[in-house]
C-alpha cells in the first residue's frame, strides 16, 4: 500500500473511516482550506477498491452483498463530499491558497495535494488568461493588470464555528469582540462544546485537539 508517512500508523478500517469523517466535518465547517489529508484519501480509495473487488467475487444473491454495497456507497459519498468541498474552496480562494503555497517554508506540510495544486494553478492561469484576452489587454496600458490577491475575497477567519473538545486545552486567548471588552483566556474541557470565532482555535483544528461539528 502506498504510504508517505515515515512512521506508518496502523489503522483498522473503522478507524480509517472515522478519521475520514472527522476530516470531512472539519473541512465542511472551517472557513479556510485545511491541510490536505491525502494519505487518508488514498487509503479510503484503496479500501473502496478492495470492497468492490470482494463484492464482485461474492456469491450472487447473498444478502450480505447489498449491505456491503450500501457501505461502499456511503463511504464514497463522504469521500466525494470531502473532496468536493475542498475543490470548492480552492476555486473560491485560489489566489490566497496559491500564495500560501508559494511562501510555504521547506518541510512545512502543504495544504494542497499535488493534484489539487495542479488544479489550482490551471484554474488561476485559465481565469487570468480569460480576463486578459477578453478585456484587460484592450484597456489602457496602466490598467491591464488586476491583482487577484486583492480582487478575490479572503476566507473569513472571524466567522464562528461549533466545536467539540477532544483534548483538554488551557489558557486559550480570546480576542475582544467589541471595544468595551478586553482579551481574556478560557479553558476548554474535554468533550465540552463551544461556539467560538474560528481564528481563535484554528491551530487546534489543525492539530486535531478539537473537532468542528
Amino acid at each position, binding site marked *: *500500500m502506498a*504510504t508517505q*508517512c515515515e512512521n*506508518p*500508523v*496502523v*489503522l*483498522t*478500517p*473503522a478507524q*480509517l*473511516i*472515522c478519521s475520514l*469523517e472527522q476530516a*470531512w*466535518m472539519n473541512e*465542511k*465547517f472551517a472557513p479556510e482550506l485545511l491541510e490536505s489529508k491525502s*494519505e*487518508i484519501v488514498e*487509503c479510503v480509495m*484503496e*479500501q473502496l477498491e*478492495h*470492497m468492490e473487488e*470482494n*463484492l464482485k*467475487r*461474492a456469491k450472487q444473491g447473498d444478502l*450480505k452483498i447489498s*449491505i*456491503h454495497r*450500501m*457501505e461502499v456507497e*456511503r*463511504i464514497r*459519498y*463522504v469521500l466525494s*463530499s470531502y473532496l*468536493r*468541498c475542498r475543490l*470548492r474552496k480552492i476555486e*473560491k480562494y485560489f489566489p490566497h491558497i496559491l500564495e500560501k503555497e508559494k511562501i510555504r517554508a521547506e518541510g512545512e506540510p502543504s495544504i494542497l495535494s499535488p493534484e489539487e495544486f495542479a488544479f489550482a494553478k490551471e484554474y488561476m492561469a485559465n481565469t487570468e488568461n480569460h480576463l486578459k484576452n477578453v478585456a484587460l489587454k484592450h484597456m489602457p496600458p496602466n490598467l491591464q493588470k488586476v491583482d487577484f490577491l*486583492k*480582487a*478575490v*475575497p479572503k476566507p473569513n477567519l472571524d466567522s464562528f464555528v*461549533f466545536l*467539540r473538545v477532544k483534548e483538554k486545552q488551557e489558557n486559550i486567548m480570546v480576542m475582544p469582540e467589541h471595544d468595551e471588552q478586553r482579551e481574556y483566556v478560557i479553558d476548554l474541557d474535554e468533550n465540552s462544546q463551544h461556539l467560538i470565532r474560528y481564528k481563535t482555535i484554528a491551530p487546534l483544528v489543525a492539530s486535531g485537539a478539537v*473537532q*468542528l*461539528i
Partner: protein
Amino acid sequence: MRAAGLAEEPAPALPGQWKAGRRLGTLRRRRGCSKASWRAGVLEVVMAQAYAPVEAALGPVEHFLSLADILTLNGRGRNWLLRAGPNWRGAASCVVPGQRQAGPRLCPEGLSGPTGNCTACIEAESPTDTGSELEIPLWLAKGLYDKRRVLSVELPKIYKESWRTVFNADANVVDLHKLGPYYYGFGSQLLNFDSPENMELAQSILQTFIGRFRHIMDSSQNTFNEDTSALVTRLDELERALFQTGQKGLHDFQCWEMGQAAQITVSSLIQNYKKRKFTDMDS
C-alpha cells in the same frame, strides 16, 4: 498510515460501524457525531447551489468582484450630496470625452442623477464656486476624496440625525428597502469620509440592525410555506439575504424531518432554464 486487515475478508469491520438511521438521510453513527454529520449533509445541500456569487463585504471595505458591492457603490443621486470644497475651484473643465472645451466649465454628463439627466449640472459661469453642491455616485466620491479635501460629504438624509431619531425610536417600522435598498452597505461605506458624525452613524446602523434582527430571525424560522412577501418587501438587501438563509435552513430541516433529505431532486438551475423556455415559447 496504513489500513490493516483489508485483503483477507470482505471488509467485515466496516458495516458494523454504521446503521441506517431510521429517517436520517445521512450517515448516522451509533454514538458520537450524528447531529454534526446531519449538519454536514445539510451544508452539502446548501453548497449544492452550484452558483455562488462573490459575497458583498461587510463594513467600510469592499469586495472588488462583488456585484452587490458595485451596485451599492453606485449610490443614488437623490440621496447623495457632494459639497465641493475650496480646492475644487477651477478644477474642472468639461470632461465629456472627445469634446474638450476651453475655459473652466463643469458640465460633466458624468455627474448626473439616476435618470441620466444632468441633474447636478453646474452652469458654465459658476462651476467652480466653493461650496457648489453636486450629486455624484458614491464610488466617485470615494475616489475623489483625499487629503486635499477637494470635497466634503454631506450625509444623505436617511443617515442624518432626524432620521436617526426615527430609527432609534422603532427600527422595525421603517421600510428599509424603499430607503435603501442597501441601507447597511451604503451606510458603512459612508464611514470612509471622516465625517464628524461617524460615531453616531456607526452606532445608529448597528442599533438599527440589532433592533430589526430579532423580528427577521423569528419570521424566517417560523413561516413555512407561507406568503412572506409583505415582510420581505420592507427589508434591506442584507436583511433579505439573511431572511432567505433562515428560510432555507427551515426548509431543509423540514425536508429532513419528513424523510425527504435523501431525495434526489432536479437541479434548480436546470429547472429554471426549463421554465424560461416555456415562457419564451408562450410569448
